[in-house]
């Protein structure tokens, strides 16, 4: 099964140079890639009748050849050569000829806000991390995913910050343990801490305080022992 990225993948030049080629396709981390974006500074620009050849440098390797085809029907002006020293974002297709990789650009945009350059760095790490995650998560079905970084929104983890039925995950866990405690004097804070490995004592105390104030539990022999108000 082929895993194909249907989106534009932000990359470094070094990643493009390392991409594996099989026939007409390129793969990074086993995902087929075609359309990519790079951000770099123009080191060299050469205008020919049908195309402009740039060398774009993002510091991760030697500058990459980026070719932009010129529309020869256009009456001048449309394809203005971007001067060396300009930071640009290039969107294009990866190509290889005689073992040399290059990009054929469909868009070359000078950066007006250099913070986009920083964003691109972060987007690369994010996208390639997701590529690797998708690869590792076994499912070999063709996947479409967003390189903008949403990827697999796999729950919020045990953070306990999203309330369900009015109780957070932490509070629910504490309440369930107290409810299921068969001992007459109820569950102690120490016992809760032993059972809830991932929760700190202060988190447990906060949960107990909330549950008590809401009337779900009550203290028994002392402030360290609690029973549930729900008769089991």
């Amino acid at each position: 099964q082929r895993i194909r990225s249907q989106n534009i993948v932000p990359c470094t030049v070094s990643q493009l140079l390392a991409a594996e080629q099989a026939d007409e396709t390129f793969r990074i981390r086993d995902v087929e890639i075609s359309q990519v974006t790079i951000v770099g500074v123009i080191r060299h620009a050469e205008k020919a009748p049908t195309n402009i050849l740039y060398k774009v440098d993002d510091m991760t390797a030697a500058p990459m050849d980026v070719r932009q085809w010129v529309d020869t029907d256009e009456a001048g002006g449309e394809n203005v050569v971007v001067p060396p020293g300009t930071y640009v974002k290039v969107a294009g297709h990866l190509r290889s000829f005689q073992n040399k990789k290059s990009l054929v650009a469909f868009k070359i945009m000078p950066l007006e806000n250099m913070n986009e350059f920083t964003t691109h760095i972060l987007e690369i790490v994010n996208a390639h991390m997701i590529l690797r995650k998708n690869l590792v998560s076994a499912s070999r079905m063709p996947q479409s995913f967003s390189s903008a970084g949403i990827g697999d929104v796999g729950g919020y983890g045990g953070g306990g910050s999203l309330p369900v039925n009015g109780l957070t995950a932490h509070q629910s866990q504490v309440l369930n343990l107290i409810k299921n405690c068969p001992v007459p004097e109820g569950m102690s804070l120490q016992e809760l801490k032993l059972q809830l490995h991932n929760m700190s004592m202060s988190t447990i105390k906060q949960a107990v305080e909330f549950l008590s104030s809401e009337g779900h539990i009550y203290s028994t022999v002392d402030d360290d022992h609690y029973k549930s108000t729900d008769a089991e």
Partner: protein
Amino acid sequence: MGDVHELPRPRVATGHLAQHIGQPVCFVGRVEKIHPTGKLFVLSDGEGKHTTVELSEPLDEEISGVIEVVGRVTNRATIMCMSYVQFREDKSPFDLELYNEALKIIHEFPEYFPFG
């Protein structure tokens, strides 16, 4: 010496220079001061730490704002500059602190942002 522009140039902050002595690097920082001879200038990184950049020929223009330097780290942990680019800030200021955070991330995840 060779042309450093054909080699990978890891993006570094002042704190990383000691680990890259003799190696090509790329440093982004804000101009703090320029020596009267024009052969030396000081940049501050996203944490405010200073790095000295040396030139083989004096500057032939005024530089200010955020500069990206490509060069080799000397054994004094300064950078011998081979080329530099001025970041445009005519439309928006460049967030150097955010760039520093991005550096931390690419240093932590070199497998997703390889140099070379």
